[in-house]
């Protein structure tokens, strides 16, 4: 979802120590918990070294073993459907030898210093598909450490050799004498023991929980209406507000006539801001009715005439100049000059909205001496900081309560909504829940950037690519969100999927130009950089295969001798998909291959193009190597999900501007894939015990080029800009 990945240069820069060389003293401390249990405080590896230097030991995750045998984990990550509330406890439960149901999770309060995600450089956020990646080593080590201490405490009590005891199902057993004691009874004793310096993690063949399809812990509440999302917060006396923001970004309110709105039953107050008007009411029905009754005159400001074409033209112009060099291998210009054949293409990807099913919302109670917030956020400290700024309060006077997230996809890494809600709440006496209508949510999103790409390649006489040239322009989301990551004109998200390709390309040159579009804010969107780059590189690779008159799978395989794991997933996907077997007319298979978010993935999409140009994705076969598959059922679910998310973008996703206004508003004009359009998705997981890779987003970036390549296979028409334009595919 965001920044770097394990293998990227920036993450490596943060990886100051390898995981197997942790200083145990600095990584983990143990002590007594309030109430007499055992408390382990962990400092996840790769943590921001400045913080460590200042504090010596900076724990960012906590495990409590309580006297009633409950294991409580305080988690820096949030659940937004990706299954993290199950896969993270699995890591602890495995080594601690407890039942998964014994582990209870608590939301971490906002504190970037304590809960910073190590792979995000100490920023407390859930994104970039990396919760399991960041937790994999330290949480297993913590579990093993606690188990060792509990065993030692039992052995001491029984005056026996710890080696004669073993841990099982939340108890320590002494086989010879048949004695057993529960962890809860040992926790206080264990807390007084020294932390062992060397604990051994289980061998892969001894794993009992990791690698099994564990039931998700959050499912029961999500089928009976009791799960509580941010939008469900109801502090006593809460009023409901909804709002109209300037339809043009950067515009202002000129005049408001609220006479009719105030007359609506249940409407309590109209709040006017510089660039928005809110209606506060007893319930959302009255607030919406009041909003419809408002007469607002806007000053559209400097972007009153902006259109998507203007943005695209500016990006196109930018790519006429050279940019920051993201990767250079060999000598592309020499190789291009020698090439037997040259292929060129221009690709573009559109702005996209997140359209989380839970519309943006934030509940706020501003008091003179403090501010309380109820929200579902992927980045709590940002909410706290934005709220403090908007409220004019010090950080420690802002309390944030996090909730389940009804869809994140990067949208809830931003705190614009919280800031807006606080601006409104400052004028309201008592708590107010600000709920965006779907139209406001889509028209005032922060969008997946528009990118513009120029590709060229040189092929030798056998059709093999001897030169690869890629230049692109667009927004750097990471450069805005975390400026230190933007260095020398580059950031690791914008380049992921464009550089370090799995293919052996002897001469390769990649340049990026940061161009921030005027009048439209951009943000992370499920798989971000790769959502753009993999579409471009994998579409273009297909074009090269076609130019060389070679099979797209065979063409790729010939470039993969140095990437055995990539080669394996491509072969597996092709085999399971029946690659090469005949298909009816206007049905085609398309392939894609990627290594992003530290996972290898190949998709084969089977697509049918009707005579009128309508595209239906019939079947998707995915092969994935994400290292150790912690929860295979979650991996399958995430790929099924990411495929639907990507096909939605491939077939429907397009946010356009006209006269500065976003033209799409609700699910009639910004369409989602529905059950009748959803393909069968088969997921094949390569089993190994490599460190786990990210799984939440990879499926999205991989599917779009597979679909477009399949359209080419079905029709011979190469589309280079999503979403699919059925008119271009109409049979003459």
């Amino acid at each position, binding site marked *: 979802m965001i920044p770097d990945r394990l293998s990227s240069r920036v993450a490596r820069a943060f990886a100051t120590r390898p995981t197997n060389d942790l200083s145990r003293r600095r990584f983990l401390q143990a002590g007594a918990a309030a109430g007499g249990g055992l408390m382990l405080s962990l400092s996840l590896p790769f943590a921001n070294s400045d913080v460590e230097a200042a504090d010596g030991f900076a724990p960012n995750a906590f495990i409590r073993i309580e006297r009633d045998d409950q294991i409580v984990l305080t988690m820096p990550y949030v659940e937004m459907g990706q299954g993290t509330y199950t896969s993270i406890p699995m890591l602890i439960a495995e080594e601690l030898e407890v039942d998964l149901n014994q582990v209870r999770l608590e939301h971490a309060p906002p504190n970037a210093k304590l809960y910073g995600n190590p792979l995000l450089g100490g920023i407390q956020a859930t994104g970039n598909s990396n919760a399991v990646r960041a937790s994999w080593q330290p949480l297993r080590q913590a579990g093993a450490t606690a188990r060792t201490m509990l065993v030692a405490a039992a052995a001491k009590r029984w005056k026996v050799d710890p080696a004669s005891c073993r841990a099982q199902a939340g108890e320590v057993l002494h086989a010879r004498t048949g004695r057993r004691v529960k962890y809860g009874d040992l926790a206080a004793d264990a807390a007084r023991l020294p932390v062992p310096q060397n604990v051994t993690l289980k061998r892969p063949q001894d794993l009992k929980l990791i690698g099994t399809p564990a039931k998700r812990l959050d499912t029961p509440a999500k089928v009976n209406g009791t799960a509580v999302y941010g939008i469900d917060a109801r502090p006593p006396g809460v009023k409901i507000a909804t709002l109209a923001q300037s339809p043009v970004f950067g515009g202002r309110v000129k005049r408001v006539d609220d006479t009719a709105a105030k007359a609506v039953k249940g409407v309590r107050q109209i709040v006017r801001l510089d660039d928005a008007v809110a209606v506060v009411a007893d319930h959302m029905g009255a607030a919406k009715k009041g909003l419809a009754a408002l007469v607002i005159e806007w000053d559209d400001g400097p972007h009153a005439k902006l259109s998507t074409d203007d943005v695209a033209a500016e990006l196109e112009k930018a790519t006429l100049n050279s940019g920051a060099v993201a990767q250079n291998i060999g000598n592309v210009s020499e190789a291009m000059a020698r090439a037997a054949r040259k292929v060129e293409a221009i690709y573009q990807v559109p702005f996209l909205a997140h359209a989380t099913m839970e519309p943006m919302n934030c509940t706020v109670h501003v008091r003179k001496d403090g501010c309380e917030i109820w929200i579902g956020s992927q980045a709590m400290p940002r909410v706290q900081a934005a709220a403090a700024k908007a409220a004019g309060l010090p950080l420690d006077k802002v309390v944030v309560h996090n909730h389940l997230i009804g869809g994140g996809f990067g949208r809830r890494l931003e705190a614009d909504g919280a800031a807006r809600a606080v601006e409104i709440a400052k004028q309201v006496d008592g708590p107010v829940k600000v709920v965006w209508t779907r139209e406001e949510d889509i028209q005032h999103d922060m969008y997946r950037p528009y990118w513009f790409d120029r590709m060229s390649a040189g092929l030798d006489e056998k059709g093999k690519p001897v030169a690869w040239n890629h230049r692109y322009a667009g927004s750097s989301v990471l450069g805005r969100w975390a400026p230190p990551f933007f260095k020398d004109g580059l950031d690791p998200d914008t380049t992921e999927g464009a550089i370090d390709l799995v293919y052996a390309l002897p001469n390769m040159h990649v340049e990026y130009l940061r161009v921030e579009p005027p009048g439209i804010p951009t943000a992370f969107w499920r798989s971000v950089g790769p959502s753009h780059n993999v579409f471009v590189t994998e579409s273009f690779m297909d074009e090269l295969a076609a130019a060389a008159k070679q099979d797209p799978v065979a063409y790729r395989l010939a470039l993969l001798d140095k990437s055995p794991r990539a080669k394996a997933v491509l072969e597996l996907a092709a085999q399971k998909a029946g690659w090469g077997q005949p298909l009816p007319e206007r049905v085609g298979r398309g392939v894609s291959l990627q290594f992003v978010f530290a996972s290898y993935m190949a998709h084969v999409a089977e697509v049918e193009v009707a005579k009128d140009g309508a595209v239906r994705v019939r079947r998707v076969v995915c092969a994935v190597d994400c290292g150790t598959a912690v929860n295979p059922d979650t991996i399958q679910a995430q790929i099924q999900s990411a495929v639907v998310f990507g096909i939605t973008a491939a077939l429907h996703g397009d946010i356009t501007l006209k006269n500065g206004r976003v033209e799409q508003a609700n699910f009639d004009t910004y369409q989602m894939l*529905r059950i009748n359009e959803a393909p069968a998705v088969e997921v094949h997981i390569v089993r190994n015990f490599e460190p786990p890779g990210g799984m939440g987003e990879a499926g999205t970036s991989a599917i779009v080029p597979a679909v477009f390549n399949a359209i080419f296979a079905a029709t011979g028409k190469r589309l280079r800009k999503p979403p699919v334009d059925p008119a271009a595919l109409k049979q003459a």
Partner: protein
Amino acid sequence: MAIAIKVNGTDRTVDVDGDTPLLWVLRDVLGMTGTKFGCGMALCGACTVHIDGIATRSCITPIDSIGRSAITTIEAIGTTPAGAKIQKAWVDREVPQCGYCQSGQIMSAAALLASNPNPTDADIDDAMSGNICRCGTYLRIREAIKQATQSAAQGGRQ
């Protein structure tokens, strides 16, 4: 104006305009937050409830149009045979991800199962294509409905 409705078997009286959508009465007036807001235009199905057993989008259903009809929400659907089977199948098949749309999905599926104990894939498409899931749990929704169908069919034979 006081309006009387019957929600999950209980009589309730609310004082709102007659054109107020049922969704907001449930969520904001009665505090029953299991029913979700997604679009406000009957485009996404997140707000689906049953009115006399028929799947209905509460976001466009004026409160004064309901009369004495029985409103059933996600909070009580487990007390109906079809609802209980659907909920069990949803858990068994691990359908939810973010879960936000699932109240509506379950209400649509429960109405389908109650009226058609043996739906075909096309029947499932018809009944469920009004419910958007941004997490893309459609495959598992289909599997879960089929599982619930089988258990319903077995129940019918016994």
